[in-house]
């Protein structure tokens, strides 16, 4: 029997409605949530990401602007810009697009972002706080995974979550989020990876299986127990066998796995659809904490 499809776009829309109300309340107090992005150079992937963020900000009602810095900027000038934004009371969130041009010290730049405005959890301190269970902004992709689970009625509380993939961007922060002793977390978390021998024995244990390896269709039906909830964080571009055109697929063999899973996120339209709205959630939260 085919799985319930967890609709990322629908959930993003729900979150958007809630955010609009929160923004309105802030505006009544004279606060307009604002996200500043910093773009050094013209990296095409960053430009594309920037366009997506600008669009989401527009839809939600979060102000946004971009500090476009030349690719040959000095470290000192980059840090000055970050410091300026840290001190600007009208800026609530700061997003630094990565990667930076090679001559710059990324770690130093990331560490310079104020933790109060680090809405994508880029500052290395944020990663540490997350794994310590201290209050911090969750990076948008893993935060989106948690929201999808909770809002689709498949909260990880008390469940066995198996994460395949141990990246610094998704897998590891997800461990930090899901082991916390809080509602919407409190899961027993197993993390394995594509090189894991006998991976099927492990993935079959999952109540909730999260695929975040970056390998197209690597999670096959035999790896999934009947009734598992499957969250696909993979974004892979492969040529369509019919049209020859590149299309986006996840890490899960969707057609096969949906016959066994209780619920599954599609790609696209699943986790990807929620990522940018979580950045908005963090920015609004940053603005609200000033008002308190």
């Amino acid at each position, binding site marked *: 029997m085919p799985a319930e499809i967890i609709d990322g776009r629908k959930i993003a829309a729900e979150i958007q409605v809630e955010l609009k109300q929160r923004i309105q309340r802030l505006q009544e107090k004279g606060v307009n949530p604002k996200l500043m992005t910093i773009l050094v150079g013209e990296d095409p992937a960053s430009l594309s990401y920037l366009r997506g963020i600008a669009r989401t900000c527009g839809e939600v009602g979060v102000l946004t602007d971009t500090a476009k810095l030349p690719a040959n900027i000095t470290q000192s000038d980059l840090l000055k810009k970050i410091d300026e934004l840290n001190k600007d009371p009208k800026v609530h969130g700061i997003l630094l697009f990565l990667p930076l041009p090679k001559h710059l010290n990324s770690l130093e730049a990331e560490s310079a972002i104020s933790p109060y405005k680090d809405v994508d959890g880029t500052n290395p*301190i*944020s*990663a*540490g706080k997350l794994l310590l269970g201290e209050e911090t902004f969750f990076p948008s992709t893993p935060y989106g995974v948690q929201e999808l689970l909770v809002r689709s009625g498949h909260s990880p509380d008390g469940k066995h979550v198996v994460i395949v993939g141990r990246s610094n961007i998704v897998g590891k922060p997800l461990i930090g989020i899901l082991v916390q002793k809080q509602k919407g977390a409190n899961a027993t978390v197993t993390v394995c990876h594509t090189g894991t021998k006998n991976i099927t024995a492990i993935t079959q244990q999952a109540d909730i299986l999260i695929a975040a390896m970056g390998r197209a269709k690597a999670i096959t039906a035999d790896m999934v127990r009947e009734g598992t909830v499957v969250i696909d964080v993979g974004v892979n571009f492969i040529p369509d066998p019919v049209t020859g055109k590149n299309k986006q697929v996840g890490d899960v063999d969707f057609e096969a796995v949906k016959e066994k899973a209780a619920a599954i996120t599609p790609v696209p339209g699943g986790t990807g659809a929620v990522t940018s709205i979580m950045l908005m959630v963090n920015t609004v939260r940053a603005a609200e904490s000033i008002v308190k």
Partner: protein
Amino acid sequence: MTAKLLDGRKISAEIREELKGDAKRLKERGIIPGLAGILVGEDPGSITYVGLKSKACEEIGIKEMMCKLPETVTETELFSNIERLNKDPQVHGIFIQLPLPKHLSSCEDKALAAILPEKDVDGFHAVNVGKTWSGQSAFVPAVAIAMHEMLIRSGYKVKDKEVVIVPADNLTGKPFASIMVQDNDRAGANVTLCHPTTPNLASYTRRADILVVAMNKPKFITGDMVKEGVIVLDFGSNFIEDPVTKKRKTVGDVDFDAVKEKAEAISPVPGGVGPMLVTMLMASTVWSAKQMAGII
């Protein structure tokens, strides 16, 4: 089959010998590793621990620079001392002996966060936690590195093993997970983090090739909760009355008599991980001195 007992005292002594060699070589280059401990007040337990650390420093060749502050010290004075040690180039490692006196207990976290990450030998600072998880070299809490060294030096392979950890705390569980999950020759395990509230916990612990427990509950892990051949790292510390002799003794979290018949190896309590903790703090201090000297 009776489990091999992993001898923490022996491993600790081995590591101390190596550290003596490291300290000697550093001294030849004009560098003496310096460890500064902040001790506030007269708590007997704290005094004992700091005493053990001082002795270890002397044994290895680390300059012990204990900072003894009176029980009545103010928050401002505490922080100015931390700042002073942060700035002192002779200090390579700073630790704060916890707990702090009651009037300062609310600023314990702030005090720990005030230690320069480059000198945070206890590995509590968020910067070091973040770096360790992301696979960078950084300070890690002593319990976790002690357990890792115990496994490696006892000749056990970690790669591809199922490592099950309970609880997922900040002192033991998560730091150990942060080491085990890395993609390198001394790690690469499949790690499961459990809670005491995990439903059907035994179904997870029974899968473990390596089981780590730090619950402080005697007989928390019983014989039926482990599989044959498991390696158990027991960091529980429970002071109980022996039912037979009626004498008080320390036991771990594991039902030792039952589990030893199934396990390949156990770190006993006492005599397992415990004796290694001070040594691993010394190791972190020597490492810090090497880092600051640009040697590694």
